[in-house]
């Protein structure tokens, strides 16, 4: 395959970053914006071409006997630690990668377009586009990674672009602290990932170059994924705290994914990340970056399968997070926070789905790899409708100048486009057919039921909660009671300009039809196509649960009524706890500020200044003290001088004499 397009995919956004980042200050806004959007359009074209070539060209590089192949378009050495530890920068084309290329470029283009309208009056418009380009570059680099180390590199880069974009409104202290928090929490998670990579690569690099793993770089995905049993063999006998080292390594790597994908307990940064501009939230914190964890698990799927404990770990973490986030989402006031928790919950859904998948046939299960396909499918559909929801929220915020649903209400009359597109988004996430979310969620639930009924039931409940909280805010925004301020002329909300509405409409349309994509034809764990078919009873259950939840939300929130506040008063503790996100932030604050900062750092700083430095000063002080103490020897009295003189001579002799005896 021609490498021009793959290189362009990475080069265009990076060049945009440099051009806009360095020259942006001197550029007029219009110019910067148009360059950004045009470049992104070109990028979109490239990505689509590559993805379509991959899926449809039938080139034997990509598909052999109906089995989709993984293909390294290029893989060049970037840094060689040792013969076996070689970091390459490359481009790995495979189903999930192609799918991600589509998702990223689409959403990115939508967001670029949308931001033209949304950010029009913000200072630093050019900088904003530069950062978006940087993010797009990093995210694309992440998904095309040929090896775990390349992934780690871009993993860090998406972290920093996320930091920059969250803190875009850098004059606001809240934005600054949110961006810091996001960066540090994810960095903390990345530390574990790094350790995981260290451990994994250590054992792989120990294998002989002519062994079963071959002499390829120990980081390489293809090599690792195609010989997971040999990797396991290389760690044979090495255990740590009861688990095999490979299990630990894979779990540690997953912890990195937990950080990026905001899994409990590393989720705390994502809600705060909503301080960033809303389109950014749509791009990074809903559609692309936060699914990096899911992507990571999918990428390393054969490796995770070889150590089933790690899959169980993923499932458990995902399940707990999904439920937790759904509950918290029910008690948030800020619409972006609701969406943020919804994102956490949905990503956790995908995690559980992946955790429930398996690459070997399982007895009694029709298709053991369903969870993988379903998770990816949901990733795809979720990206579309969650971006839609965020962009819709952006339009609302743009109109109302507040994130708070209490400042909204009855907006359906004023903002019809926003209303309808938002509704489509809500229906999609709630899992109502024929919207896209239904299909992907149904497949996921089927996979979970297949794995264990507990997961199925548990996640069905979460799905119900999802429908409830989404329609809760839907009603609170668009129905409930009209905000009296809208009557005043200047405050009358209205739909957003076309640059903003267009992406909404496009994404809504995609959300309507995406469910009908035969996703299993394209993306499966082993490349063999799988024909999706609906499991009737699962679909029935989930639709029923969703409809019931929507009905409940309708009853509670469609018209202004005292029911919600009564319920709130009935369970004040629970509501408060959920509203405060079960006090995770407070716990973190306590640990970081009181213990680490106040306890460890201050103690060390004090120790350094007073003990270590004090010792050095004390050396000087002692010298000085001696100097002062012995000054009386120099008494000025010549008789004393000669006394010392003689004494010295005698002492010299006497001591030597005694020593010789």
């Amino acid at each position: 395959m021609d490498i021009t397009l793959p290189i362009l995919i990475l080069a265009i956004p990076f060049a945009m970053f440099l051009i806009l980042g360095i020259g942006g200050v001197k550029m007029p806004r219009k110019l910067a914006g148009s360059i950004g959007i045009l470049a992104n359009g070109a990028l979109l074209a490239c990505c689509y071409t590559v993805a379509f070539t991959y899926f449809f060209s039938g080139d034997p590089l990509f598909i052999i006997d109906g089995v989709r192949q993984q293909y390294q378009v290029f893989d060049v050495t970037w840094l060689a630690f040792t013969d076996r530890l070689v970091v390459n920068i490359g481009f790995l084309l495979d189903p999930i990668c192609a799918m991600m290329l589509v998702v990223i470029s689409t959403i990115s283009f939508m967001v670029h377009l949308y931001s033209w309208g949304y950010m029009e009056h913000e200072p630093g418009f050019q900088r904003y586009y530069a950062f978006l380009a940087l993010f797009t570059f990093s995210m694309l680099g992440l998904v095309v990674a040929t090896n775990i180390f390349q992934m780690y590199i871009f993993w860090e880069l998406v972290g920093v672009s996320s930091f920059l974009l969250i803190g875009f409104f850098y004059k606001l202290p809240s934005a600054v602290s949110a961006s810091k928090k996001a960066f540090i929490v994810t960095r903390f998670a990345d530390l574990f990932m790094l350790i995981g990579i260290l451990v994994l690569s250590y054992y792989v690099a120990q294998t002989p170059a002519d062994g079963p793993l071959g002499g390829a770089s120990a980081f390489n995905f293809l090599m690792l994924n195609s010989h997971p049993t040999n990797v396991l063999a290389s760690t044979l006998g090495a255990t740590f705290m009861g688990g095999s080292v490979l299990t630990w390594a894979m779990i540690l790597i997953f912890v990195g994914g937990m950080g990026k994908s905001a899994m409990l307990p590393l989720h705390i940064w994502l809600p705060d990340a909503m301080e960033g501009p809303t389109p950014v939230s749509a791009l990074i914190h809903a559609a692309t970056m936060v699914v990096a964890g899911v992507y990571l698990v999918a990428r390393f799927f054969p490796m995770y399968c070889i150590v089933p404990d790690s899959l169980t770990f993923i499932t458990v973490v995902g399940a707990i997070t999904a439920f937790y986030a759904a509950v918290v989402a029910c008690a948030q006031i800020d619409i972006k926070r609701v969406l943020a928790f919804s994102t956490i919950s949905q990503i956790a859904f995908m995690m559980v789905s992946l955790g429930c998948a398996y690459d070997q046939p399982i007895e009694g299960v029709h298709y053991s790899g369903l969870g993988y396909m379903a998770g990816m499918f949901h990733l795809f559909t979720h990206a579309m409708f969650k971006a839609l929801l965020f962009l819709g929220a952006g339009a609302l915020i743009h109109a109302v100048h507040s994130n708070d649903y209490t400042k909204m209400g009855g907006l359906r009359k004023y903002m019809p486009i926003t209303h309808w597109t938002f509704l489509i988004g809500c229906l999609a996430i709630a899992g109502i057919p024929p919207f896209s979310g239904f299909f992907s969620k149904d497949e996921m639930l089927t996979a979970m039921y297949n794995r264990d009924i507990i997961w199925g039931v548990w996640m069905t409940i979460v799905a119900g909660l999802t429908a409830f909280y989404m329609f809760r805010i839907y009603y609170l925004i668009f129905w409930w009671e009209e905000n009296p301020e809208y009557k005043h002329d200047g405050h009358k909300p209205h739909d957003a300009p076309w640059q903003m509405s267009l992406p909404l409409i496009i994404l809504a349309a995609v959300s309507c039809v995406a469910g009908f994509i035969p996703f299993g034809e394209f993306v499966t764990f082993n490349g063999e196509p799988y024909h999706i078919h609906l499991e009737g009873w699962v679909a029935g259950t989930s639709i029923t649960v969703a409809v019931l939840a929507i009905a409940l939300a309708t009853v509670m929130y469609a018209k202004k009524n005292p029911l919600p506040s009564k319920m709130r008063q009935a369970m004040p503790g629970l509501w408060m706890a959920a509203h405060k996100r079960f006090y995770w932030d407070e716990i973190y604050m306590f640990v970081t500020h009181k213990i680490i900062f106040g306890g460890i750092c201050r103690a060390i700083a004090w120790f350094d200044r007073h003990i270590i430095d004090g010792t050095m000063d004390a050396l000087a002080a002692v010298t000085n003290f001696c100097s002062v103490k012995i000054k009386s020897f120099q008494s000025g009295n010549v008789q004393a001088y000669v006394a010392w003189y003689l004494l010295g001579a005698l002492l010299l002799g006497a001591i030597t004499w005694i020593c010789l005896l």
Partner: protein
Amino acid sequence: MDLEMLWYLVPSVIMFCAGVFGFITRKNTIALLLSLELMLNAADLNFVVFNRYLFPGSMEGMVFTLFAIAIAAAETAIAIAIIINIYRAVGNSDITSAQKMKF
């Protein structure tokens, strides 16, 4: 060691010690000079005695003593001159008055 030689050496040691004692305890610089002379003479005495008893064949010790005496005289002369200077400057010749510079 020759017992007879010891008879001569003991006074030498006593002289030396007396000189040191005098030097350390006396106040007047002239007295200090006298003490120093005692010490020097003790050393001279040693030379003579050793020469006489240990190496009766040669004269080195004796000659050395002669030179030492001459040097002692020169030292005393210079010392006296300086003491006179001090006396002119401070009005007495006590060693205690020459303790301005210290530490």
